[in-house]
């Protein structure tokens, strides 16, 4: 659910850009440092970015029988960590805006804030928390539960943040921010809650397979 170009008042668009900027700057700095330290890393980062873009272009089933796309926030945060995701997510969103007309350029900051900052951080927090809580439950169960929670929560957090952004931009004439937040979140939740569950399931299948096919790569990424 990308906020379209021009949908936010320009003051809001500017404010969200400012809010996202430090996270993106930090992510870009750690990315460029990694690339300068090791020339091999440049192609791997390219691969990670291409993977993030294509992942978010895959279709997953939704309730209405139509399809939607995963946010990829959870998987990205677990594989590449939230700071790097802030940078990769921004690049992905820029390409989505220019190649697919998903999201806009002036609303890029707002979309980055919800999808490349809040989503990944919420997912990563959930991942770490569940990992710690289920440490005694065996690697497969622990990893599965943590990945599910990360992906589902990452997806939910993203959409909650989008609802907040829209509610702040368009407060309800009678009840202000809470009323319009309830309206936006209500409209989106019909589709987004089942989607978050499905994204969680898909991500579990994906990570389980990676554990068998590419364990070295995962270990290098520190999963």
């Amino acid at each position, binding site marked *: 659910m990308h906020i379209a170009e021009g949908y936010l008042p320009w003051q809001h668009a500017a404010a969200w850009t400012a809010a996202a900027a430090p996270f993106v700057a930090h992510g870009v700095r750690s990315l460029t440092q990694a690339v300068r330290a090791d020339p091999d890393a440049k192609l791997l980062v390219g691969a990670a970015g291409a993977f993030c873009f294509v992942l978010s272009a895959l279709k997953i089933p939704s309730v209405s029988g139509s399809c939607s796309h995963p946010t990829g926030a959870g998987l990205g945060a677990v594989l590449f960590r939230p700071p790097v995701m802030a940078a990769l997510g921004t690049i992905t969103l820029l390409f989505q805006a220019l190649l697919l007309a998903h999201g806009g350029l002036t609303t890029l900051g707002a979309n980055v804030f919800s999808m490349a900052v809040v989503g990944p951080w919420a997912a990563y927090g959930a991942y770490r928390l569940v990992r710690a809580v289920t440490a005694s439950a065996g690697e497969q169960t622990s990893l599965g539960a943590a990945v599910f929670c990360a992906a589902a929560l990452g997806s939910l957090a993203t959409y909650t943040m989008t609802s907040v952004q829209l509610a702040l931009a368009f407060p309800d004439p009678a009840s202000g921010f809470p009323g319009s937040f309830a309206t936006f979140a209500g409209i989106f939740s019909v589709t987004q809650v089942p989607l978050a569950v499905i994204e969680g399931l898909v991500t579990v299948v994906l990570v389980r*397979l990676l554990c*068998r*096919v*590419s364990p070295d790569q995962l270990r290098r990424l520190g999963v």
Partner: protein
Amino acid sequence: MTTASGGDATAAPPAALAGLGLSFGYPDSAPVFAGLDVHIAPGEVVGVLGPNGGGKTTLLRLLSGSLTPDEGEIRLGGEPVRRGRRALAELRRSVQLVFQDPDDQLFSASVTQDVSFGPLNLGLDTAAARERVTWALEALEITDLAEQPTHLLSYGQRKRVVLAGALAMRPSVLVLDEPTAGLDPEGVESLVQTLEGLRAAGTTLVVSTHDVDLAWRWADTVLLLDRGRLASGQAREILADPALLAAARLRPPWAPAAGRALRAAGLLPPGTPGPATPEEAQRLLDEAAG
């Protein structure tokens, strides 16, 4: 393959698979076909030949239900395939498409897991799916690979695993896009042997290839394709016609020339088919010399 245009389509024997009046174009580009008719008789090996960009892969994808024609219809066992999810699923089950690059079709961690993907999607229970897997691995002579992780297999092994995955759907028609590409001569030979075994067991084979020599010795019928049908018919008639081959931008196979030369040398009686392979030709020459 019997081809028919217009009225006599109904007179042809029931085809295992047919496309009638197929038109198709990718968005924002010129149509690939307009009104193409294709009839594939049961139990045949059909070679699909033509230049790159001539529409071979597009035709294979239309026949196997992975693309839907803009106009025209696909007939499976004489019955038109209706639009809609159930009819499409039935077409896809019965006509299995095997891609050129095996990595496009291997997406599970182990061979058994990968081959069982299709049977499980058919709604089979675990035991029935396992049976299908065992049978398919046996048919492709790769039972020993069952527990292997897919990413450690050689190219030729991966090609066989993908074929087993398609075969586990028990299709009536196997559609193969360049099955011999990237294989060494020995690999080509052993794959052709295996596929011949499947054909003997009743599977119809539609095979796209660049290898005119292979098409000469293996295909029963041939379809020449260059953005629309150029010709179709008995392989040994089509592939012996230099004008047709030139139109399809193909070079002629060696076998007819070698056969003519051997007949001219009196080493083959007139009217007999020529040698299918260079080894056969050498043997005839050696016998004459020795």
